[in-house]
């Protein structure tokens, strides 16, 4: 789809979130909710003592899985699958360049995820929550974050081009 039209669609979804629920989109929080739930199920004491995790547990009565972002990400999964099916873009594969093995690529993907988690945790969000949402609301921290994401990515892109070429 034309990127500008896709962007308008995305923007309208974001606007709908603002108008209906008074918050924007996000993704990182869903991961935090699952981790909080998992840790509190396996080791409740530890979960309560860990300040970061405890923040996602909130009231003792409500399960951390009843998280707005978790439901949103579940929808993300469904919506992406639907669009992929429509376009015939669903297939089990590993995205990579021709000169790199699947194993190496998957290792890089894992490493990227770990780094991303740290970055998103520090920044209180990722490209969906901070860049898109905060961007639209002219949030100061979000714009600074966005600039840094592009800066960091462009700075190291050269050194990882072997993954894709």
């Amino acid at each position: 789809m034309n990127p500008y039209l896709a962007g308008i669609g995305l923007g309208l979804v974001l606007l709908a979130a603002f108008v209906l629920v008074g918050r924007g989109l996000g993704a990182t929080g869903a991961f935090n909710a699952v981790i909080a739930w998992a840790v509190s199920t396996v080791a409740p004491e530890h979960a309560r003592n860990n300040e970061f995790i405890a923040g996602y547990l909130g009231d003792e009565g409500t399960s951390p899985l009843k998280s707005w972002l978790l439901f949103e990400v579940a929808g993300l999964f469904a919506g992406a699958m639907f669009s992929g099916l429509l376009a015939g873009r669903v297939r089990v594969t590993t995205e990579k360049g021709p000169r790199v093995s699947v194993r190496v690529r998957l290792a890089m993907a894992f490493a990227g995820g770990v780094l991303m988690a740290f970055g998103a945790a520090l920044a209180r969000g990722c490209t969906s929550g901070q860049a898109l949402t905060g961007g639209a609301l002219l949030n100061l921290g979000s714009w600074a974050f966005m600039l840094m994401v592009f800066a960091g990515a462009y700075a190291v892109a050269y050194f990882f081009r072997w993954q894709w070429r």
Partner: protein
Amino acid sequence: MAGRLARLTLHQTLALAAVLLGAAALFASPYPGSRVTLDAKALALVIGTEADHVEAPELAAWIIQGRADYRLIDLRSEAEFATYHIPTAQNIPVNVLTDAGLGRQEKLVLYSEGGIHSAQAWMLLRAQGYASVYMLKGGLDEWTDQVVFPVVADNPTAAERTRDERRRSISAFFGGQPRSASAVAAGAAAMPGMAAPATPALPKVVAPPTPAGGSKPAAKKRKEGC
């Protein structure tokens, strides 16, 4: 001109639309700021019916029942709140009330020392669109007089006995004690023209025992974010 517009590509059309909308937004001020619009007549009506009042014994009953469908707000300073406050109350000094992030549809019960600040706060909140705001009639003064240190009759009739029993148990719940009617009357007679006799010092706040199955009035908020 129409011909030129028709020959624009999709991208050019989008770009033009964006720039026009952006230019038109140059004078926008989307944040509501602190100006409000009041419907004076409607508010006057509400004030007249006193539908927005909550009596002290009523509030006491709600607390004892462990009701969690409302928020009790103490409008006084932090120091006054620390000295004594109605159990289950939350301290939001009146001057930071509008920044407190209260939900527009939440049921709020306000109280202050007597009633002036709670009345003013009531007006502020109603003007901002809060739909469900109530005031404790008579404020902390009435609370002290009617709930914590209620007056009980010296020689009660049958009807008065039931009433006094209830007052005694309520007062005990909140750590207070009843005053005898004659003592109050004697005090008033001995000091004509003066205010009512000094009530005993208010007890240290003890959170009332949460009744079985009662829920906390203000749930610990989960981290919001992305």
